[in-house]
């Protein structure tokens, strides 16, 4: 079971966990991204996330499917939020269940690492005195 969602509503972490629970699973690893107050010493006021939604859903599903091929995992939920997020809010939740915990850890970490490299979602950091699309420039 793979559940992929992009939404502009606050993410429900407990719902992601419940979704991947399974009587044959022995461990669940969950990654929760949060908006940090500081980036390179500058105070972040808020972030804005924008997604190329159709493609982002497809790319997230590819990552999940690759994780299922690489590790014996049972269920995976990847929920990504878009729109304006304040410090402390949650842009992404990834929950992975597996019979044994090593697979859950490996697959969860692979998923967030790959998501950050390939999924067409963009983050703009808004500071007191300006804003910047993260990673856009060298």
């Amino acid at each position, binding site marked *: 079971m793979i559940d992929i969602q992009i939404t502009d509503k606050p993410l429900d972490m407990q719902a992601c966990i419940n979704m991947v629970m399974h009587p044959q699973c022995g461990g669940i690893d969950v990654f929760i*991204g949060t908006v940090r107050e500081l980036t390179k010493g500058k105070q972040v006021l808020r972030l804005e*996330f*924008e*997604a*190329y939604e*159709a*493609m*982002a859903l*497809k790319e997230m599903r590819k990552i999940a499917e690759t994780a299922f091929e690489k590790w014996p995992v049972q269920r995976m939920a990847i929920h*990504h939020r878009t729109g304006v997020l304040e410090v402390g809010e949650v*842009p*992404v939740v990834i929950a992975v269940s597996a019979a044994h915990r090593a697979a859950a850890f490996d697959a969860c970490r692979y998923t*967030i690492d790959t*998501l*950050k*490299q*390939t*999924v*067409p*979602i*963009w*983050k*703009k950091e808004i500071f007191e005195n300006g804003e910047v*699309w*993260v*990673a*856009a*420039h*060298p």
Partner: protein
Amino acid sequence: MKVKVLAFGIAKEIFGSRHIEVDMAEAANVQQLKAVLEQQFPRLKQLASYLVAVNDEYAEGPQALGERDEVAVIPPVSGG
């Protein structure tokens, strides 16, 4: 042919729009599209990198474009 190009993130700001239309020769490819875009919008060349997607899939330079394709400029992603 006219190719409609979607723009996201900083590309949307560079184009000044969520999508633009580009005039291309029939069966022009991704590589040629990039050359045209970079000529019209030189700021694209200042990006750390950017990719082109065709119909929701990352596309290589030689891939041919058609008028009905959904083409998008993908600046460096920063989700998560």
